[in-house]
């Protein structure tokens, strides 16, 4: 039984000049204890995926889906109030800016206690012990003190840990981390990521890690979904994607990671995909990546479908079916 099954999820933004697609027909599946990485550029719609699952889309956005099945219940069949209670009891989300995602007018203790009271209940004393346990489990050295502090009084890493503790307070089966480490410095980044991975393993909870940084995903995830312009471009096991990415966009993302030490070729420039992600109001004909794709050819003006590649996963590119002519390295060479 899968923990999360999303089938044909579409999110539409109703702008003043008409509806715009944000996510189109996206399907993903996650099991308990699995770590799924979602990667894409800014504006690709990856955060919207998280918000859509959590039911936190702004009123100007609507979502449709065949089903969004979370721990055995279809969210699309629930009314909004019922749904928000159910989702909050099964899933939790951690945002990029932990400082601003905590309420500045309440202590961390009261914000943690509120969630505990809502989802676990119990006496004040019991909740206090649980709160201390939770803060301890996210690696806070003086939990007793942190309970009394306001969010602005603690550092970014500390408040992100507190935000994780608050997220864990509902004993989530699914933990969504939306760019959880982007606002932190590098050493704290590694700690927070390790913490998230360990916690999800300990609790057998699914972890959805959303980021623009492929390097973060490579070490920690079981599977990776690549999103571009609201479409799932490639979806496969992490080792397959790292070893042999099938979609030109995935290749481009991997090539844009700087290599340090011996792997870095002297004098070579870092690969960068030309152009920008197209605004939703000006989508290109055919493949969304078309105008930017280094391998674009005549056939790309047709709309691309997700195709299943054996021993790999799903790819939205007709070139993936053809025998591999150019390997991974020559793509960056072709750019020069």
């Amino acid at each position, binding site marked *: 039984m899968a923990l999360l099954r999303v089938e044909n999820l579409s999110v539409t933004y109703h702008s003043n000049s008409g509806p715009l697609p944000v996510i189109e027909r996206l399907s993903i599946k996650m099991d308990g204890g699995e770590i799924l990485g979602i990667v894409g550029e800014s504006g690709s719609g990856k955060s919207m995926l998280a918000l859509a699952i959590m039911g936190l889309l702004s009123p100007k956005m609507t979502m449709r889906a065949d089903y969004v099945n979370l721990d055995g219940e279809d969210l699309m069949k629930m009314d909004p*109030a019922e749904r928000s209670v159910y989702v909050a009891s099964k899933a939790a989300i951690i945002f990029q800016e932990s400082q601003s995602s905590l309420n500045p007018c309440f202590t961390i203790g009261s914000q943690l206690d509120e969630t505990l009271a809502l989802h676990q209940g119990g006496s004040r004393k019991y909740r206090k012990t649980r709160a201390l346990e939770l803060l301890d489990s996210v690696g806070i050295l003086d939990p007793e003190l942190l309970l009394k502090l306001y969010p602005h009084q603690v550092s970014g890493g500390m408040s992100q840990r507190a935000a994780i503790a608050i997220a864990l307070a509902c004993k989530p089966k699914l933990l969504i981390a939306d760019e959880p480490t982007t606002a932190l410095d590098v050493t704290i980044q590694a700690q927070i990521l390790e913490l998230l991975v360990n916690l999800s393993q300990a609790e057998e909870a699914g972890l959805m890690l959303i980021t623009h940084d492929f390097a973060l995903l490579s070490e920690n995830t079981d599977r990776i979904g690549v999103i571009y312009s609201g479409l799932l471009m490639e979806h496969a096991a992490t080792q397959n994607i790292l070893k042999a990415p099938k979609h030109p966009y995935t290749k481009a993302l991997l090539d844009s990671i700087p290599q340090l030490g011996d792997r870095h070729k002297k004098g070579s420039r870092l690969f960068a995909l030309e152009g920008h992600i197209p605004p939703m109001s000006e989508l290109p004909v055919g493949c969304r990546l078309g105008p930017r794709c280094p391998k674009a050819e005549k056939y790309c003006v047709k709309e691309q479908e997700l195709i299943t590649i054996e021993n790999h996963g799903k790819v939205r590119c007709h070139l993936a079916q053809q025998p591999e002519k150019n390997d991974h390295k020559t793509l960056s060479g072709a750019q020069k």
Partner: protein
Amino acid sequence: MIRLFVRQMLMLLTSLMILTFITFGITRFFPQESLNHISSTSSQSNLLNEYIFYLEQIFNGNWGISQAHGTEVLDEFLTFFPATIELSVAALLFALIVGVPLGIFAAQNKNTWQDKFIVSTTLVGYSMPIFWWGMLLVLLFSLSWGLTPVASRLGFEYDILPVTGFMLIDTLLSDQPYAFEAFYDALHHLILPAIVLGTVPLAIFTRITRSSMIRVLRSDYIRTAKAKGLSQMRIIWVHALRNAMLPILTIVGLQISVLITGTLITETIFSWPGVGKWLLEAVHRRDYVTLHAGLLAIASIVVIINMLVEVLSFYANPKLRHKR
């Protein structure tokens, strides 16, 4: 904490000092005979000596004898003052209790017709001349429909001994058999003046609450609160309002002076025996002694209340209270 206290105290003293400079300066233009109580009679009188003597007299409660009534001005002020406080507090409560929820409602339904209706109505309320608005309400509610009394604080049939000067309290303290009826009557008398006086602050509170709430509702911590599965009620009234209240509190402080100025007109319309009406009559009678004392007292009260609100908003904001 102590630093804040000292700073506020210094600011308060400075404001009051400037205030007394002004009132002292004004007295120089008054007819001489009206100021016998505060003019120094010593032979070597210079400006500084006179100012110090003036301060002494004011602090000793020697505010002079009213030219119109021949009674102590301080005593008169103390009789009229509670009525004004009662009216102002009622108006402030009315404005807050109606304005804040209205602002929240508008913010929640931003850009719908309800929101647009509220915003445009508040603009009308804000630009309404109070004297006209007051008379219109009296005409409708009191004269046409007979819902509320036309004027004064209490019906003539009740005889209530002034203890605190606050009619709502005095009626309850009274041991007359009709104490409760008198209380309701006093409440009845209070409603219309409070609405009239509270209209402008109501419009302002609604607008400030709306804009402050819209800003707060967009913030990340509200999204977190939703993700936690909290009820809509709790998100709005606890998480959002607590943050939205901070700018509202500052505006409340600034509105105090608007309220006090408003009493001059409102009390006259409703023959409300308060400081406002008392001062307006003093203007008509050229009662300089009363005017000078009233000006000084009201201005000092506004300054003091503003300082209290400042301290309050400091305590309400954890970011200021607990510096990292």
